[in-house]
């Protein structure tokens, strides 16, 4: 069924990042990296109650030895004019796995959606990622295997959408 309406989202702003290189996160535990394509400045629609921050990106477990563990945590941050800080500890996200047997299965398609209280004026937002333990970095955006073989110079676009509700 199709519905046509004048406006589905309030004041949507989006960013599609076409990557031409991979991005490695830190191999040291708890050292954060800003995910390329996750930064945006947004001012909520007047009178709105919530702001939705929604993003998808692609990651590969770099610890691809057999049973190589990979645990990542992500924080959504805001800039107050002088420093970046986590918006709320209740907004933390995780993903991870072990590379149990095959390196071809060490991939993560990540889709995250945050619903935040609205604010006044414009605000800068970004998403950071860090490994839970040493030697558990991930490689972002690059696709290593596709169409049944090795892939070279193949990257997945990061999609970021922010809107008011």
């Amino acid at each position, binding site marked *: *069924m*199709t*519905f*046509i*309406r*004048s*406006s*589905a*989202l309030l004041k*949507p702003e*989006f960013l*599609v990042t*076409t990557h031409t290189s991979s991005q490695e996160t830190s191999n040291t535990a708890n050292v954060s990296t800003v995910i390329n394509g996750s930064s945006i400045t947004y001012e909520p629609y007047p009178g709105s109650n919530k702001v939705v921050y*929604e*993003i*998808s990106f*692609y990651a590969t477990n770099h610890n691809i030895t057999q*049973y190589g563990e990979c645990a990542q945590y992500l924080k959504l941050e805001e800039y107050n004019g002088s420093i970046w800080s986590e918006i709320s500890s209740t907004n933390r996200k995780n993903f991870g*796995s*072990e*590379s*149990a*047997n*095959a390196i*071809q*299965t*060490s*991939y993560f*398609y990540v*889709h995250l959606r945050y619903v935040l209280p609205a604010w006044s004026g414009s605000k800068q937002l970004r998403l950071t990622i860090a490994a839970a333990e040493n030697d558990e970095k991930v490689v972002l955006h690059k*696709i290593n*295997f*596709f*169409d*049944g073989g090795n892939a070279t110079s*193949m*990257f*997945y*676009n990061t*999609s*970021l*959408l922010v*809107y008011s509700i």
Partner: protein
Amino acid sequence: MTYKVDKLCIFQNTSHTSHQTINSTSYTEVSGSKCDLNNTEQRNMNLFYKFNFQCGQNPTSPYSDDHYLIHMKLQSSNDNFSSDINDIPGFKFNIAHDSAYAGSTAGHDYSIMSYTAFMILENFNKRYLRLVARAYDTTNFTGMLHGYTFFDGASSTYYYDTLLQIVEI
């Protein structure tokens, strides 16, 4: 002067009555992922394509695999994918899962995952969109979509409704 522009907003829920096994190296359409935007005038739109579905390791595979690697691509068309079939650049990706029981069939029920493919398209002017999928190979990396064969702690077949959203932004 005020101009009112209607924007596209599609919600398409599909109740599946069978599982879709992905065990071929040829691309096949993911059931429930195709949509007619009815964009007959080929208007340029910014939109997002969001598709929620489930995948697990193929429990019917005769091979001793316990993982899957499924290649997926977002495609567009103006003729319902009859002859006009286009891969959309930048939106090819993999879904994959492994488990400590790899090499046996003991743990394939640990591989069940739900996914939400979320992709923003800029200046899109085609009429149809869909996802297609294939397996990395036909032996050890096959998968099964839209439900599984275990539930409530026992062997029990169930089906997972897919939800497709296409919203102009």
